[in-house]
Structure formats: C-alpha cells, structure tokens
C-alpha cells in the first residue's frame, strides 16, 4: 500500500486564501487529512489591545473582507453592551440591511466558486456577473463595495433615502430571478449532481460534537441559527425561516445557501418597508467604555462568529478574542473527508465555505517511484491523470 502525500497548499486560483491541507491517499481514496494553517495569522487580537475602541472597529472589520460587516457588528454589539450604549432603531435596521446584503453576495460567491471547482467555468462566470449588482448595492448604501466601514459605536455612519430604497428593490428583483435559476441548475444539472451528491457526508451528531457551524451544520439538518436563537440588531422583529436540509452532503450545504439567499432578499424587502424614522448615531462620539465583559455572537454567512471582549475601563480594550466560523469548519471539518476520493477534496473544502484563499500549487510525490509532479488544485478536482 503506497501512500501518497499531497500537500494542497496555499496557492490556488479559485479558493483565494492561504491554507494547506496535507492529504494522505491510498490510490484514489483519502486516508487522512491534516490542516496546516497559520499563513493568514496577522496577530489582530494583539493589535487590538494597542488601539482605541473606535480604531478597533476598522481593524476587526479587516479580519475578513467578505464578512466584514458581521465582524464590525459583533465587535460593536459587545462594546455597546459593556458600555450600556443604546442604538437607535433606525440604525439597527440599517445594520441588519447591510448584513443581509453581505450574506447575499457571500453566498453567491461561494456557489460560483463551487461551480468553478467542479469544472463548470461558464456557470462561475455567469454567477459572478449576476453578483456584481449586489456589490453595487453595497456601494450605494455604505460608499464602498467590499469593506463597508459603516459602523460606529452606537449607530451607523450613513443614511439612505427614498431614491436608494427604490434602487435596492429594483435591483433585487433581478437578482432574485437569477438566484432561483441557479438553484434550479444546481438541483438538476447532471455534472453538479454527480460531483456534489453524497460527497462529504457529516452526520448531525458529529457536526454538533465537532463544533461545526452555519450552513455546514444546517446542511446536516440541525436547526441552529444565531439570528433566531440569540437575536441581535433588528432580527428579533423581522420574520424569516431557518433553512435546514437533511441530506448531510455537499449538495445540501450549497442548497442551504441558495435558500438563505432567497430568504435574505425577502428580509431586505421587509426592512425597507418597515424602516423606522429617527437618528442613526449618537450626537457625540463615545470614547470611554467602563469595566465589563461581553460574549457576543452573530450569524456570519459562514456560521457563528464569536467575540469575547474584556474591558478594564478606559479608551482601549484589555482583551478581544475573535473566533471565526471557518476556524471550526475548516479544521474540525476534516471529518468530512473520510472515504472520499482525492477529487472530492476540493469540493468538500468549498462546501464548508472556507474563508481562506488557497492559491498554491499541489505537489504530488509518489512514494514508490520517487517521482514528483506538480498539479493545480483545479487539476486535482478533475481527477489525477
């Protein structure tokens, strides 16, 4: 039995974050997967202690660019809790609006990337094209396509008017139509079914024991969503459904994301219809926070995001602990690779929505012959030649 070790390393054209998976394979079957991370570690938690409370909003937004609004939400929500700061209702609704817009674009992105990983390049291009209007909406509301920098302690920094509201509703109509079409493609297309169905099975009890979160958990039928169970911002007042699928495979996880996108579009419509009047931020900026501690949880597109904030009084935090959903989903998600083929490894990794760019080549070392070949992750996902 000759075991090949394949480092699926930090550079990969489709998944855009540096993380390395060491895959040990016997023939085509995966025997073991080890995750080697740390390429992305920038010491944000330590830097946070050096900055003031307000500066840290900008720092923690940049822990992840794709889910930056949820990072800002979790951080400001915790700090506002410690400081007893009231957030006006209009600001809560606007925060929810921008978080849902982010959920829409993030889910469309990972579904497009999944299409690319499977080899369906034209679907990837089409989905990216249809995602561009959502980025434009984000720019309309916050002033920037990706990194919104929308939050301040006690509120938000920009307001929207009737013109913007109408634009958002009009654009979302088209987006909704396209998302419904892409969901149909994922359900009915022969290639996608073959690559995604019954691949990367995670049983519900395993998913809970291994702390998997978000669509990865809900794709195994477990009804757990922070927006429903631990409401924050305006979610307590907005009606929505928690989506679960019982398939436990990669296809279920992607379908959860499609349905959540459609739910998000409905939620945005509700928010715009019921947006309360009033101020959007406190009149004077708040600089000093009293002593206290907060455990803040938010549903990011990838799962539960958790911050533990400790304040000893003053204008700087004492400790901010960040636990992103992908920390659990990628590292503990290695249980999904059991009995998979090598070609399934990128599919399973994409289905847990890793928030890490993998842009490295794959080095295949055949232990018996000692020859080494260089492959891309893309080639790997299309089968070793």
């Amino acid at each position: 039995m000759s075991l090949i070790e394949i480092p699926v390393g930090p550079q990969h054209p489709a998944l855009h974050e540096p993380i390395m998976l060491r895959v040990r394979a016997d023939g085509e079957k995966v025997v073991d997967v080890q995750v080697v991370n740390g390429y992305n570690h920038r010491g944000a938690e330590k830097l946070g202690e050096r900055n003031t409370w307000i500066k840290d909003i900008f720092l923690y937004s940049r822990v992840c660019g794709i889910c930056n609004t949820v990072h800002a939400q979790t951080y400001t929500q915790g700090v506002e809790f410690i400081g007893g700061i009231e957030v006006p209702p209009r600001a809560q609704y606007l925060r929810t609006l921008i978080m849902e817009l982010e959920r829409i674009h993030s889910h469309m992105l990972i579904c497009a990337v999944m299409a690319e990983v499977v080899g369906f390049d034209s679907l990837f291009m089409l989905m990216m094209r249809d995602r561009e209007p959502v980025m434009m909406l984000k720019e309309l509301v916050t002033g920037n396509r990706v990194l919104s920098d929308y939050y301040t302690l006690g509120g938000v920094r920009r307001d929207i008017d009737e013109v913007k509201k109408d634009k958002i509703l009009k654009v979302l109509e088209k987006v909704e139509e396209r998302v419904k079409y892409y969901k149909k493609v994922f359900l009915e297309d022969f290639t996608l079914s073959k690559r995604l169905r019954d691949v990367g099975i995670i049983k519900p009890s395993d998913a809970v024991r291994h702390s998997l979160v978000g669509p990865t958990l809900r794709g195994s039928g477990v009804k757990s969503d922070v927006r429903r169970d631990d409401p924050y911002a305006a979610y307590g007042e907005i009606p929505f459904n928690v989506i679960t699928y019982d398939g436990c495979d990669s296809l279920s996880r992607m379908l959860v994301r499609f349905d959540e996108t459609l739910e998000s579009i409905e939620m945005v419509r509700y928010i715009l219809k019921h947006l309360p009047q009033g101020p959007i931020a406190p009149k004077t900026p708040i600089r000093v926070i009293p002593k206290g501690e907060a455990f803040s949880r938010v549903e990011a597109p990838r799962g539960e995001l958790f911050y533990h904030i400790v304040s000893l009084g003053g204008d700087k935090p004492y400790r901010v602990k960040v636990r992103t959903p992908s920390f659990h989903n990628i590292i503990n998600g290695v249980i999904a690779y059991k009995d998979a083929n090598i070609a399934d490894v990128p599919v399973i990794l994409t289905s847990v929505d890793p928030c890490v760019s993998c842009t490295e080549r794959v080095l295949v070392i055949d232990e018996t012959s000692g020859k080494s070949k260089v492959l891309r992750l893309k080639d790997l996902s299309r089968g070793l030649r």
Partner: protein
Amino acid sequence: MSKVVDYLRSLSLKELEVKQPRRYVFEVSPDKLRDVIGGVIKVSPQTYVSAISGVDYINEGVIEVNYCLWVIEDKVMVVLKVRVPRDSPKVPTIYDLIPGALNSELEAYDLVGVVFEGNDKLRRGFLTPPEIASQNVFPLRKDFKV
C-alpha cells in the same frame, strides 16, 4: 428554563451576575472541569464548544480560561471560567469529551500558553510564525510587547 443552567446551579458552583441576556457564567476549579463538562453533555448532548478564550490578568497573577458553550436546545450560552496561576497554567483537556474543542485548545496553547494536560496534539507554530514559536514566548500574554 434551561436544563443545563439548572444542572450547573445544582452543583453549587459560584455563579457570576451577568446582565447580558441568555448568558450564564460560572466559576469552576480545574480539577472539577472534566466532571462538569461531562455532566453538561449528559444533560444536553446538543452542546458545542463555541470558543475557549484565555485572558492574561498579569496584575492578579492568573490566567483565566473561559469555556464558552452554546446549548442548542436551551438556546443559552454557558461560560465556565477556570482560573489558573500564571506561572503554571495547567488545565485538563476536554477534547476527548468534545472533539470540537481540539482546535480551540491548540490555539489557546499557542497564543496564551495554557497547557491542556492530556492533549498530545499540542504544538507551537499552530498559528504563530516560527521565530516566535521557537522562542518560547506567548504573543497574547501581557508581557509580550508588540
């Protein structure tokens, strides 16, 4: 109410007053940690480790390890605080009880220096770059200056 919270209250652990809704904080000593966690999982198996957060209180000479557990059924977060002396921060591992705690324990070891006894997978360099890992310093301790 919450089954897990009732169970923890019945153990006469010190409960800290918390104003945040759906959060319950208890103090646990290191030697009782495994029994408490084992009991929590028995009462409500659908419980997972959301995070393990280590805080260095250098002025008090303790490192406080916060086990943040989310109970899916009861919809509450239970935080177990374990305080250990800074010069010998040892806590028993729980990853055999809850496999999902493994990565959090590795992170707490690499960044704060908490030693999880019984965890054979602990290693430096999990997140930190090699030059820090080789020096036996822990970046998130207060005596590590950026």
